[in-house]
């Protein structure tokens, strides 16, 4: 690295320009990664938080928005109950409602109707769990909108009154709408259209005969990968694993594909720009390299030195860019779904550096082809 470091210092203007471009690309990569994580959280954190392995939808349900479209009955549920390799099978109801609090705060809620004592019951950070027929456990970030324990949410049109009894641990959203867990019985009352204005009561529930839910949530036995397709046939369902089900949440696929495409383009641009820079740089100093080779420098030494130079440039300016990106990300307005997560940012930084190095490597390989004979005779 003897030569590499001295060249970096000597041609600092050129390297600083290149470094700035790398840093700017890193900033963009970090911001996109944050936005991507934020959107994913906003879209499916409610699903991610569920301990389910897979979901069985009614057969033939359209994939997009499948959760609120699908309707399963007790026969389908029973078929899954008896299936091999399935530890738990529980009905779950999903739909999205609008509501307003007594203070006039308007909220959108994704209702997750679950068995209060079932495996889907959420852990709460404050308050009580799902149980009371008129009680809901809502997504933690709703606190920032002024929702508290005891807040009564009145659902639009139905005028049903639900009381906040607890908050989930961390964010739980589905399709960018905050999740409210409630007992499946209460959900059925709403879904059947049998609710009456005011808080739902036990009597209303007892007089209802509505054996339906949206999906069957499945939990596989430990270490078993059940044969979903076989039970699907007999139960008349279509099963998606938890991650497959992300795509069944509104807008998820469209958002993540768009962002992934932009990120892939950025990585390609990084590799190409760094490659182009080092191509020009190598050509610029090809006479010097010919001199070094004539002096007896091995190709290996020269390649190692040039790659070290590229690595120093990439690592230092990517670090600067990532730091700037994280700083900017922390200052993002709350309205932007933005989440700084270590893992995707580390991956994005490594990819920027790795692909940049690849571009540089393709460029500096030409060092090996420079003929030391060029050192003799006329200048340049």
């Amino acid at each position, binding site marked *: 690295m003897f*030569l590499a470091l*001295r060249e970096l210092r000597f041609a600092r203007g050129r390297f600083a320009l290149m470094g700035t471009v790398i840093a700017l690309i890193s900033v963009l990569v970090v911001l996109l990664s944050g936005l991507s994580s934020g959107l994913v959280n906003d879209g499916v954190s409610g699903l991610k938080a569920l301990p389910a392995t897979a979901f069985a939808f009614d057969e033939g349900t359209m994939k997009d928005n499948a959760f609120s479209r699908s309707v399963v009955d007790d026969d389908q549920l029973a078929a899954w109950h008896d299936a091999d390799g399935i530890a738990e099978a529980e009905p779950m109801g999903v739909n999205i409602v609008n509501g307003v609090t007594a203070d006039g705060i308007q909220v959108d809620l994704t209702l997750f109707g679950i068995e209060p004592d079932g495996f889907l019951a959420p852990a709460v950070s404050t308050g009580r769990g799902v149980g009371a027929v008129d009680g809901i456990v809502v997504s933690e970030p709703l606190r920032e909108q002024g929702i508290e324990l005891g807040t009564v949410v009145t659902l639009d049109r139905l005028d049903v009154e639900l009381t906040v009894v607890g908050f989930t641990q961390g964010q739980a959203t589905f399709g960018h709408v905050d999740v409210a867990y409630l007992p499946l019985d209460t959900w059925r009352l709403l879904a059947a259209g049998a609710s009456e204005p005011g808080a739902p009561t036990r009597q209303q529930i007892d007089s209802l005969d509505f054996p339906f839910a949206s999906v069957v949530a499945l939990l596989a036995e430990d270490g078993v990968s059940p044969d979903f397709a076989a039970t699907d046939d007999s139960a008349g369902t279509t099963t998606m694993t938890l991650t497959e089900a992300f795509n069944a949440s509104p807008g998820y696929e469209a958002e993540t594909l768009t962002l992934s495409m932009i990120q892939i383009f950025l990585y390609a641009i990084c590799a190409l720009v760094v490659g182009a820079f080092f191509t020009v740089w190598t050509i610029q100093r090809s006479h*010097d390299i010919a001199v070094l080779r004539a*002096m*007896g420098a091995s190709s290996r030494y020269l390649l190692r030195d040039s790659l070290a130079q590229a690595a120093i440039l990439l690592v230092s300016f990517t670090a600067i860019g990532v730091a700037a990106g994280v700083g900017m990300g922390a200052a993002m307005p709350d309205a932007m779904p933005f989440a700084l997560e270590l893992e995707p940012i580390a991956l994005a930084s490594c990819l920027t550096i790795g692909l940049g190095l690849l571009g540089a490597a393709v460029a500096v390989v030409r060092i090996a082809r420079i003929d030391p004979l060029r050192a*003799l005779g006329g200048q340049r």
Partner: protein
Amino acid sequence: MNDVTTSALEVANAVLELGDGDSRVRALDDVSLTVMPGELLAVVGPSGSGKSSLLAISGALARPDSGTVRVHGTELSALSKSAATRFRLRNIGFVFQSGNLLPSLTATDQLRLAGRLAGNRRIDTHALLDSVGMAHRAGHRPGQLSGGERQRVGIARALVNAPSLLLVDEPTAALDRRRSHEVVQLLAERAHGSGVAVVMVTHDRDVLEHCDRVLEMIDGRLGVPALQH
């Protein structure tokens, strides 16, 4: 340091052809030459006469189509490409036109790099620069040095690994008369003082007075010049 009985450079019946097809030229035509340690040999001739080709085969940068080249007893054509590179590193010093120094390195670092390439991290750069009268410019980069100063640093750099053969390519091409004399004088001093054999290619007939022997190259053939200075 160098064995006086072994010739530093021995070229025998070397033939080198360059180019392809119709444009094929015989750059070296049956060239034979012996240089002893401590000798400063000048090869003069018009451009395109094959002077650079002679340097190339002597320095293991090119291989003759036929004939042999021995440097300090080692047959160069017997070496693989990487072995030739290593051999060049330790046994042959090159001085290029106008020094051909690396623009990013100070005079001291030019020498240190040459040493490091050969795995030698302990170079007395001060003494070496002092011996070419450049100690006072040790911290300067090539851009801050005059043509003559660059050439002096180039000579010091070529001597870092104590080569037995110094190949010098048109050292006075970019220099005025006075500096040309100084540089060639310096080469002569080094040859006579340390016993390194020097082959200098030039078309500057003014500086030949400092050389022990002069040969002339015309159309790839080497001979004694018609007009000896």
